[in-house]
């Protein structure tokens, strides 16, 4: 079979869509993180705007409900001076039977410059990127279980901010890895940036052995998983996993895999605790930890806006 070109890059190797952290050149990830760093100061200014996307239209296409991610993309686009149009498609056109590609074609006709897409099916942003007008950039804001690359990149920004160097870190990702797009995006980005040990921690129903194919160490014991870790990333446990199909109860999960001060004590003394939010206190993370000195959950949110600004600014500067 023909080898297929990475659809995120143009023929010069520049980023034209952000669909996944998988296969991103290290230099592009570093460029995004560096650019995000320069945007952080914008967020501290009295007038929190730069004119990089002035006159551009960014369409937020959320086929799956989200408040937090959509809001951070909206803030990021507005701080770049873009016009932002929010479409809550979960409740509109597709409910009337319009296909995904028809929706996209219609919005393209409204002269969109960028689509920020969230969809419940893995691969939906790839499909849109394949079929939209050539000048339009697609940013994946989460597709099925596949990828959530801006979350992955803001996690990298956070780790770099607190740990400086990736090359001697142990990172533990804990919880529902198999259904997590955040975990996949983190794992790819961490591998590209040279993290030597990435652990996936949880019960076998949520952390199956074939995750090893992604280059992670699979741990079914929390103590083994967090011991001497520099970074602990806790994932949100979705309610639908807790009702007996994959886990008997949230209580049993918390007892064995929840991050409590005792468990965190096994990690390095200067370990940081991350979470993509929204957190379930007492399900995957104890309040003492979420609010404790190791937690960097709120800085993650702040960095998230700068990282999303960086992604949009870089995409807007590259042509298909």
């Amino acid at each position, binding site marked *: 079979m023909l080898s297929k070109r990475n659809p995120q890059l143009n023929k010069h190797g520049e980023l034209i869509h952000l669909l996944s952290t998988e296969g991103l050149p290290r230099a592009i990830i570093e460029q995004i993180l560096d650019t995000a760093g320069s945007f952080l100061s914008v967020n501290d200014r009295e007038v929190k705007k730069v004119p990089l996307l002035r006159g551009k239209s960014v369409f937020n296409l959320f086929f799956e409900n989200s408040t937090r991610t959509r809001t951070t993309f909206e803030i990021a686009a507005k701080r770049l001076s873009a016009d932002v149009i929010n479409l809550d498609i979960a409740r509109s056109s597709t409910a009337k039977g319009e*296909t*995904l590609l028809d929706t996209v074609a219609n919005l393209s006709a409204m002269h969109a410059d960028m689509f920020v897409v969230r969809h419940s099916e893995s*691969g939906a942003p790839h*499909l849109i990127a394949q079929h939209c007008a050539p000048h339009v950039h697609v940013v994946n804001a989460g597709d099925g279980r596949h990828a959530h690359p801006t979350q992955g990149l803001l996690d990298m920004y956070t780790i770099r901010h607190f740990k400086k160097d990736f090359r001697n870190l142990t990172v533990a990702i804990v919880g529902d890895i198999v259904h997590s797009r955040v975990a*996949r995006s983190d794992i790819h980005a961490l591998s590209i940036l040279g993290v030597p040990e990435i652990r996936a921690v949880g019960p076998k129903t949520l952390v199956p052995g074939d*995750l090893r194919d992604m280059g992670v160490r699979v741990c079914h014991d929390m103590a083994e998983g967090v011991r001497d870790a520099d970074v602990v990333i806790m994932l949100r446990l979705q309610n639908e996993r807790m009702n007996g199909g994959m886990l008997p109860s949230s209580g049993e999960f918390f007892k064995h895999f929840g991050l409590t001060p005792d468990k965190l004590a096994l990690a390095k003394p200067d370990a940081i605790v991350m979470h993509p939010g929204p957190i379930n206190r007492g399900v995957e993370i104890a309040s003492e930890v979420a609010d404790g000195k190791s937690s960097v959950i709120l800085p993650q949110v702040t960095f998230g806006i700068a990282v999303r600004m960086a992604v949009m600014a870089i995409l807007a500067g590259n042509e298909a």
Partner: protein
Amino acid sequence: MKILIKNGRLVDPASNLDRVGDVAIANGRIVHLGDQGDFGGFEAERTLDATGLIVAPGLVDLCARLREPGHEHEGLLESELAAAAAGGVTSLVCPPDTDPVLDEPGLVEMLKFRARKLSRCRLFPLGALTRQLQGQALTEMAELTEAGCIGFSQAEVPIRDTLVLSRALQYAATYGYTVWLRPQDAYLGGGVAASGAVATRLGLSGVPVSAETVALHTLFELMRGTGARVHLCRISSAAGVELVRAAKREGLAVTADVSINSLHLSDVDIGYFDSAMRLTPPLRQGRDRDALRAGLADGTLDALVSDHMPVTSDEKAVPFAEATPGATGLELLLSLALRWARDAQLPLQRALAVVTAEPVRVLGPALGSLSASAGRLVEGGVADVCVFDADASWSVTPEALASQGKHTPFAFASSGFELPARVRCTLVAGHVAYEAA
């Protein structure tokens, strides 16, 4: 019409025939096969010069969906039987998952009648094993057989209730009917891609190998108790091949086939969510593909099938998991059989056997009087013939296919696949059903 096919290389795996000669056809039958000459004053109304071409039995495809009745937007009897003829296929077996389901004798008679009128390809329908394929009540198998069904199938709907499955096998065994089942556990088989590195990486829900092996173990155990004869449709895994091998060694009355897709592709070909690769059974890993190829070579797997399924563009231009599974295949069957044999360094005879004599052996007595001559070249037998150019090479451009389904993983633009062999002429019962322009 009297037809003379002159000076072709006659290849018939069933009789181990491979020689240059003539074939004379009259009244739908082969009246002479072999030496060139005038064979007692045979006056051909039409002479086909087959110099440099191969004259083989018409192909027999054990799995092709025509989509009629009920799915005419995807395929019509007319377009899909034309595709069969263009692919050199002269007999095909269609599963019962039409709408309405083939669980009534009248529907089967109608379908057979309409296909016969088109006279492009012989049609052998499978009847539904249970009413509406719901896995609850048995169909009138004897009535359906009289109407023309050659076996009974659940198509893509596994029977969940093991008691029903056991009784269906018992009842079919009473009359010696073959039950055609794709081994897939209803609960484990819910995903959209084979479990493994690719599905994990892409975040696609997986179908583990155990979906196939659990179903096979269950079936074999029930076969031992009931004495039923079972044809296993589209084995997809190395472990599945191994279980079939063991069952045959044990002496169970079992046969099996594999699809052209599983024989040539693996999950890596999904690439970036290519919905042309959304297939059932799902494409598995390279080692599974290798085991399927070896299993077809050594006879563990009896036949190669096109698994033809015309799907519209609208049904594929959606995210991977939402895409309708399936691909067009009738026009690729011969080329992909030959390509497999070439890759595996197997003789032409074996490549043709898995699409002619072997599928006829699978069908067995269900073919009635045809079982003696379909899928082979034999004097006195039916003149179902495929004439092809083995030296031609081609690549698939979907628009050029006769099938209404234009989606195939082997389209050149995306796959770069070069295929051997082009069909020049297809004869069904002595009529020219297809002739290349």
